[in-house]
């Protein structure tokens, strides 16, 4: 389909038809002060000229040549070269859950496979077709818990849950009748005793993260028993790569497990598009938002796929819908399932183990520097916190500008009293040489 702009002549005709002299007269209702200023834009260039100009501008970025030790919810992971060739096939590229679903059997099968893989990662019974991102999946898990507990209206969140996710939950809660109570961490770990003390008949669920924001891996089995004894649900945010080697959410007793699926084959981009996965125990399937794709047989007994559980969605239930989300991240879900298929079970486990091994190595060389200390002495996955002798922000900036090393996240912005602390992430993408170079550069700056 061609895309044609209006010609000057057509514009003149349209303006004449409504009795307006010139285009700007259409905007007289808008006060001058808030109108766009005149833009100083250079004249047109040829395709080659503009390509050269954009390349020149792109080269000013140092992003792709930087050594990355920043995670905090978005992770720099390996993605097999075959992945984009499969995902970008035109049959898949506009991979939205279709409104006349059963005609798109291939798409439904892809989502079905995705759901199956997410359930294998968390150990839970059912997955939906995906959510926007980890934070929105967490919010949905919170309101699901309220529905499942017959409208208990309070949620306890461990401070070890990503502060960014907690802000998203706060944004939702601000306009609704329920509240979120943050339970401070204790030396980086979940304060199980403090949570137990706050459990009561008004608590819908307890939300924890494994690993938590500081990278610490914990066993929540004992917590889950206390939460269930109080009639509440245990909601766990998990890292899907770590899930390959960490005790599963289901084994620890989680009722709902969710997480950010970006590590499964998607680049960090600039924060999106990402994907939230959401898996539940079978008893809670009907409180779950979004769609589920199910396997069935057709009239001839042949395997086929159908969309189920969409009757609670907005286009049918209007304001009484389960959620305001009735879509999914089709393409990113496909990316996740293609990634997992290409990696295989053994590949994913090896990847996870490399993360642990390299992070442990980095922990050693960084904390061997004079003035650098490990903040929490706990088992971690691919992130850990180090304390620098001075405010972290300035040092991190110099590392980036002078050494092209993105050294991690300065935690002072998110946690009071942690101005000297840095959350460092090490994945299979960071070579031993790059880790040594980071330690050497940091040593020179201190």
């Amino acid at each position, binding site marked *: 389909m061609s895309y044609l702009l209006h010609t000057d002549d057509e514009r003149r005709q349209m303006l004449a038809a409504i009795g307006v002299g010139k285009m700007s007269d259409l905007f007289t209702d808008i006060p001058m002060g808030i109108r766009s200023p005149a833009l100083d834009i250079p004249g047109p260039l040829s395709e080659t000229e503009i390509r050269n100009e954009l390349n020149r501008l792109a080269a000013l970025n140092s992003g792709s040549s930087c050594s990355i030790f920043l995670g905090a919810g978005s992770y720099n992971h390996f993605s097999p070269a075959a992945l984009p060739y499969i995902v970008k096939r035109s049959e898949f590229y506009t991979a939205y859950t279709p409104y006349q679903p059963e005609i798109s059997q291939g798409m439904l099968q892809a989502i079905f496979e995705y759901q199956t893989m997410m359930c294998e990662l968390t150990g839970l019974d059912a997955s939906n077709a995906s959510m926007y991102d980890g934070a929105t999946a967490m919010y949905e898990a919170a309101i699901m818990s309220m529905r499942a507990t*017959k409208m208990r209206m309070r949620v306890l969140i461990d401070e070890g849950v990503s502060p960014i996710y907690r802000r998203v939950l706060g944004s939702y809660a601000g306009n609704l009748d329920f509240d979120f109570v943050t339970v401070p961490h204790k030396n980086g770990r979940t304060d199980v005793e403090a949570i137990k003390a706050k459990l009561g008949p008004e608590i819908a669920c307890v939300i924890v993260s494994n690993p938590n924001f500081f990278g610490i891996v914990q066993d929540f089995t004992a917590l889950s028993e206390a939460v269930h004894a109080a009639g509440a649900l245990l909601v766990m945010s998990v890292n899907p790569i770590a899930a390959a080697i960490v005790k599963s959410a289901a084994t620890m007793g989680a009722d709902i497990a969710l997480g950010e699926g970006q590590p499964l084959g998607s680049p960090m981009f600039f924060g999106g598009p990402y994907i939230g996965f959401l898996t539940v125990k079978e008893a809670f399937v*009907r409180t779950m938002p979004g769609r589920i794709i199910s396997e069935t047989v057709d009239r001839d007994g042949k395997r086929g796929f159908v969309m189920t559980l969409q*009757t*609670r969605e907005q286009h*049918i*239930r209007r304001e*009484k819908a389960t959620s305001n989300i009735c879509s999914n991240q089709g393409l990113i879900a496909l990316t996740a399932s293609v990634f997992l298929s290409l990696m295989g079970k053994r590949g994913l486990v090896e990847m996870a183990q490399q993360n642990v091994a390299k992070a442990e190595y980095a922990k050693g060389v960084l904390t061997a520097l004079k003035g650098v200390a490990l903040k929490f002495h706990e088992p971690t996955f691919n992130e850990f916190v180090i304390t620098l002798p001075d405010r972290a922000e300035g040092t991190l900036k110099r590392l980036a500008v002078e050494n092209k090393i993105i050294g991690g996240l300065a935690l002072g912005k998110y946690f009071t009293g942690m101005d000297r602390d840095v959350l460092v992430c090490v994945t299979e993408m960071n070579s031993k040489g790059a880790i040594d170079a980071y330690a050497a550069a940091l040593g020179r700056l201190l």
Partner: protein
Amino acid sequence: MADRRYTKSHEWVSVDGDIAAFGISDHAQHELGDIVHVEAPDAGTAVQAGSPFGSVESVKAASDIYAPMSGEVVEVNDKLADAPELLNKDAHGEGWIVKVRISKPAELNQLLTEEQYQKLISE
């Protein structure tokens, strides 16, 4: 049991002493199609005439169901969890949803009789 009475929103009630059974009408199940899930309140829940007390989900739609009378739920039809199709097979009998100890018996008089309801659905 006494005669069934109906709401305009297609629920029925059948009162026996101070206990009333609630369900959805045969007409309603027919309109909804294959029912796949029934959501009902737990025993002990207070229900109020005219307010939603649960929902019925079919392959076509999910609909709220409204309490014909006020009171407290004393029994829930557990069979519906595994066999929601009972609503299709026997909406006025085995497909009852909850039993309620009614607090305002006079509310019954405001509900539609069999004859009035048949007239409503034939319109």
